[in-house]
């Protein structure tokens, strides 16, 4: 597991950040020229981070928003210029726009669920935290972050998953870099509170 490798070696493993690396310029140029395989490289690099970000901020429609985001990205791909950091910033900016569009649409046309679900059946925060404690899986971690306030969750996901620096995140959210740092710090503190004062011990016996 990547987490165990990361904890043992104290470094990064194959994660959601910057997979393409130095070849990004060539890959992008080929994709813009119509090379489907090179576009797939870009997609495999960014889609997991995109899905995790969207699942943290909009769990109910993450896949739909991600698909819509990629359609927009493909249609504007030939007009994009920039490095990999700019590429990721553009991708997540587009995703956030689609997210806001969907939020507006749902506010205008609220959907009625077909099945009646009682509040007792809904997942509660302790349950979500317990899932994270038990599995420490990525989904559980995303579920924990989704319990944070919206902006704090977005800051953490954009900083951690998308690998964007503070200034870029500030630009995406329309906040100042200092505000982004404050929100990140508060989000981490809240995650600590959710994990408990004694920390969390994973199945592998690692205390987080």
């Amino acid at each position, binding site marked *: 597991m990547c*987490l165990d490798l*990361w*904890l043992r070696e104290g*470094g*990064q*493993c194959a*994660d*959601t*950040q910057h997979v393409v690396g130095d070849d990004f310029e060539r890959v992008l140029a080929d994709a813009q020229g*119509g090379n*489907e395989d090179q*576009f*797939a490289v870009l*997609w*495999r690099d960014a*889609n997991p981070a995109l899905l995790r970000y969207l699942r943290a901020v909009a769990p109910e429609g993450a*896949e739909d928003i991600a698909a819509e985001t*990629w*359609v927009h990205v*493909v249609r*504007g*791909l*030939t*007009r*994009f*210029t920039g490095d990999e950091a*700019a590429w990721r*910033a*553009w991708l997540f*900016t*587009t995703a956030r*726009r689609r997210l*806001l569009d969907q939020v507006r649409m749902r506010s205008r046309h609220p959907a009625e669920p077909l099945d009646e679900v009682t509040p007792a059946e809904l997942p509660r925060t302790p349950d979500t935290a317990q899932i*994270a404690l038990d599995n*420490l899986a*990525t*989904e*559980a*971690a995303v579920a*924990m*972050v989704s319990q944070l306030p919206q902006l704090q969750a977005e800051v*953490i*996901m954009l*900083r*951690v*998953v998308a690998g964007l*620096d*503070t200034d*870029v995140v500030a*630009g995406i959210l*329309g906040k100042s870099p200092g505000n982004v*740092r404050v929100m*990140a*710090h508060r989000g*981490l503190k809240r*995650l*600590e509170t959710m*994990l408990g004062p004694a920390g969390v011990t*994973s199945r592998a016996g690692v205390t*987080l």
Partner: protein
Amino acid sequence: MPDSQLPIQGLASQRERDLDALLSGEAGYPAAVHWPVAGVLAALRAAPAPDELDGEAAARAAFRFFMLPEAGPAGDAHPSAPLPQVSAQFHPGAVAGAGRPDEPGPTVVLPRAAPRGPRHARPPRHARPRRPAPWPGRWQVMAAAGGAAAAVIVGVAALAGAFSGPGGQPGRSGLRSTPQSTSASSHRATSSVLGTATARPTPPPTPVSPQALCHQAMDYVMHPPANRSAEDAVMQQLSKLAGGQSRIVGYCVRRLGLDRAHGDKAGFQGGPGDPAAGNQPGGGGFGDHGASWSGRAGSGARSLSGGPLRAGRTGR
């Protein structure tokens, strides 16, 4: 900066550094490993799960749909037109307006559908060419033509009034014609022709010359005034000038040149009018004379010569 703030700032910088290292997963940094939530953040950036890559086929299909016709050979049939090759440099500062309609990011414009069949969509109204005017300056030319026609009509009416009046008497117009308007003159001219004029002349000022006295006497003959004393005064003066009341008519005919008017076409000359009446305001003017006289002629039934005079305008 006070020295007392340096340790605090240094502590804050250290915490900020730890925070950045934790969020970015910086390798080998202690805080990135030993922070209580480091494991959660590591799980967030874990390797992709298989379900997160399930949509690759759909993404490839979307890529082929939108991109391959553009990269392929020319002439490939595709429902969408190629996207414009506009350089849209992405920069982090441009994402501040995310979600707004005026967002500066690379917004994709839907391709315009190609016209199908013989029916073509009508272009928008502002794109249609304007219908050209039949010819430029249309209203200005029409207005000028109308004005010229009106002037001709007025002139003809004035001439008609002058010719149809009971007698052209030079220098007479200066007495009463000035206040009259052109339209009124034309109306009186028409009335003169038709013989239905009913307007009465206003009493003239006291005549000072034989011609003026004769004009005044003719007016009194044609339009008997209510004040008989004025008429009597004029007639007495003319009687003295003519040498008797019975000679007034002959005297005025000679003084006004009416005895030569019928056979002398050159007598109708226009111009300044009677030199004797030249001291009258507006005396002798061609247009004024005709218009004034025609207005006063009325039906012409009581002209001194027994009929409408046609050339009696020549002054002497």
